[in-house]
């Protein structure tokens, strides 16, 4: 490697490489992207693990997330404090879980968390309604939305509690071959 970088120590880079699906180069470029969100906040030197968090409002300005309908939920899910303020670890984790080589099981877990708006570990009818309204941007009438929600829960709910638990969600996702290719953000 030609240029010497002082952003991370070798051990740090190895740790990142082992725990995520990224290579060293990609981690360094990710750090560059993270820094350009808030250059005054994020230091160049991360060797002593500074505890810096970039707020939600800045993270959703990234072009990959800016127009995404679920951007707030995605950032909140991957942030440690649940409010959307991401440290660099959270940032890397988010893109690692959503990358191409991430396994289906991991993506399913995070997809469930993202779609669970009220964070009660179930996707209930209200969560579904919120998802649908976001997806269709109000094009469907309220009656149609209710109908779709009822039908969807009826189809996917296996144990009959009219809510989708993680097991129900996972079972449904396993039948959707497009899930892996769609649930992917390229950085």
């Amino acid at each position: 490697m030609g240029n010497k970088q002082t952003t991370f120590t070798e051990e740090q880079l190895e740790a990142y490489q082992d725990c995520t699906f990224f290579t060293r180069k990609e981690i360094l470029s990710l750090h560059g992207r993270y820094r350009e969100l808030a250059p005054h906040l994020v230091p160049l030197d991360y060797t002593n693990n500074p505890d810096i968090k970039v707020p939600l409002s800045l993270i959703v300005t990234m072009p990959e997330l800016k127009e995404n309908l679920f951007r707030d939920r995605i950032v909140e899910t991957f942030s440690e404090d649940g409010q959307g303020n991401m440290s660099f670890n959270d940032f890397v984790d988010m893109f690692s879980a959503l990358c191409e080589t991430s396994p289906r099981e991991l993506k399913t877990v995070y997809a469930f968390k993202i779609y669970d708006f009220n964070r009660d570990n179930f996707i209930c009818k209200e969560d579904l309604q919120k998802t649908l309204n976001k997806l269709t941007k109000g094009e469907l009438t309220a009656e149609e939305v209710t109908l779709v929600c009822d039908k969807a829960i009826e189809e996917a709910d296996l144990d009959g509690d009219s809510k989708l638990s993680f097991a129900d969600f996972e079972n449904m996702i396993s039948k959707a071959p497009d899930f892996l290719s769609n649930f992917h953000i390229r950085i």
Partner: protein
Amino acid sequence: MARSVNFDLNHPLIEYGLESPADEEGVHDSFNQLIAEQSQNEEMFDTFDQGPLGRRELDKEHQDFVYTSSPPHTFREREPDRGEYELEEYGEQTDPLIPERWSSDTLKILSSMPSRTIGRNRGAIISQYCNKTLQLRRRRQSKPADRVFSRSSRPSIRAYDLEADTTDSESRDLTKQDQLVNNLQNLSASDRERMLRGMPLCLTVKKKLRELASQKEKQTRSSSRINCCSHFKLCIIKSWYTWSSFIHSRQMWKVPLKRVSGRFGTGVLSYFLFLKTLLFFNVFLFLVMGTFLVLPQAVYPPEVPANRRSFSGLELLTGAGYFSDTVMYYGYYCNYTLHRNYNSSTQAWSTVKLPSYNMPLAYFFTIGMAFFITCIILVYSMSKSFGQSFRIDKSYSILAIKTFCSWDFRVIKKNSIKLLSENICTQLKELLGELKPKHGRNPWLERLRRLMVHCLAWLMCVAVTTGCVIGIYYFSDYMHIENQKQGAAQEASLLALPVLVSLINLLLPGLFNFAAWVEDYISPSVRTYVGLSRNLMLKVSVLGVLCYHWLGRIATDGTDYIKCWESFVGQELYRFLIVDFIFTLLDTLFGELLWRLFSDKILKRQRKPEFDIAKNVLDLIYGQTLAWLGVLFSPLLPAVQILKLLLLFYIKMSSVMMNCQAPRRPYRVSQMTTIFITLLCFPSFLGSSVCVTYAMWSIKPSESCGPFRRLQTMLKAGKQWMKQLAEENASLSPLASAHAYLVENPLFLFVGAGIFLIVIYFHSQVLDGQRKIITLLQEHIKNEGEDKKFLITRLQSIHEQKRPSARKLTNQDSTELQEDKPQFSNYYGSSTSG
């Protein structure tokens, strides 16, 4: 062992059910313990009932009402009617199965159940991964150590804070963490990495685990002797990872692909990825051919015939002329062992101090090997793609899947997102429309009418295709005779047949689209499949008649006109490739650029032309089939195909970005990708390998050119070599006889194919059995759900029976309690937190 479920009402009350009523730290192994705890708590509450803390109890009862409606905020809106509401609630004793009637305690138990906590709760993730790694360790035959999986869902910091409160949980978590670290350390490096990467934990925790695991590993390593085998394996794995990460980072065309996927989504991206795949196939072919055929022949050039033509520009189009006596075509290759080269200036042979090289054998084996390896790679990628998209269980979660899985996270541009939203909206509306009962005027008449229209359309398509194919057949015959009459003078007339075929390939799909539009299919996926099958039928029949023309007519034609039929066929294929490329360019120009300008300026519409993914992919497959057909006759054809694909990528990319919009109709990416890979394997590769095999097996090579001249068939080269080996070396004679018996005997092939079919049949039977098991398991889950409902209602009824008196109080005091609630909860919380 189960933790005590924390019935701290302080926490959930304030947030009105926005947070999980469950304790995130709970790990539950036993339901019995929970019930015991629950009944203990109930006794505790019963003692409060009579005391001065009766209001606290009322508060708790009030909280029951908080949970009886979901969402809580709508409950608040109903405040003025609260009295009636409560009465109503208890009036409805008839249906106790409504979840809304369950008390907070029941809900807490429910949400703490192991099956409900998977995916979010720390404890559940821990236990799940515990089992996983235990199984993995048992499989790898290491000592079954206890696993600790510290699942920390986000937020993890809060989790640690909660841990600090209760001492026993802290100690337990520490031991769990130790267990996890122990397990991780006992796994191999690759397994450990895979486990770490796949855990749904936050990165800080993962890094800490990794650090602890490697620390311990260092300690244990120093104490025990290092197995050199595992050390070697570790080195190999590390080098493989660095190599693959290097390859990954040098991803070709990363930025343009990202731009395309950001604007058009995964559908259009799949076309470009398919192009990339084809490029790699051709690069592989080119490397193999280049190393084993082109290079040796270029180093040892043979004697050049006297009438070799000079270079004129037309060669690039026709492939004949100067190119016909170069390494490009079959005819140039020598049929003897190369050990000397011919110097054209001095017109003499000179021996070179390089190893000799058996050209015919090399040609034979190189072609065979290239096709064999391509076959393996194709079948492997096809089966992988098939495995990803094929689902055994054909159940119907269409709406649910549409809601959750149809959003393409890769799309970045605003307009594309709007389009995608509209797309999903349309699909959902269509699905809803299918759910509603159809009331037609007369369904039978309607169906008959549709059937008639479909039949007519198909008839027309088949008729047109057959007409074109017959036309090609007669035209090729005519051109062949014409060229014979005119001799070798008119090179440009050789382009007539390729131009006709490309024209047909360009115009007929338009006709098929028109027919599909007339037919007006209800389901868009059926429309796509019908269009695909019609195009496929056209291309297969065109290629079929062309193969007959080349292998059946030209190869067996004994006239003097074509001295070297293999080179001629190679040149034909080169011409077809080039003309196909030119027509694709023209189509891109007229179909996309000019159409967009036309619709912009003249029609003044905002809609740009759509990028027809299926048609473009079929064109790619067609081109690749031609390349595979021509490899035997023109070893440098893969190089031409590589250049063509590279140019095509950039031209299509710029055209798409400038002129097109994303497809309006829904496009199922993984299914279509599987179909395309299957099409690449089955009609395309299989057809070309069958043709090549036929050419090598049955057709007599030309007498005056090529590495197989003066042999009966090309295969005889291999047989000759075996015979030679056997003669030279007596010990190899059993090999020769085995070869003679097995490979040349067609019975062997039949038996092999039969065994293959039997294996496939067995696998399909296994699949059927698995389908049956899945339906049984689903029944089982439903029954378990019923059981749970029953138990919960029993719990609830017991709970209600134990507190009949408190109910009456709430009706009067509820409104007062409403305002005082926060203080009460604080009071209650502080007294129970100890």
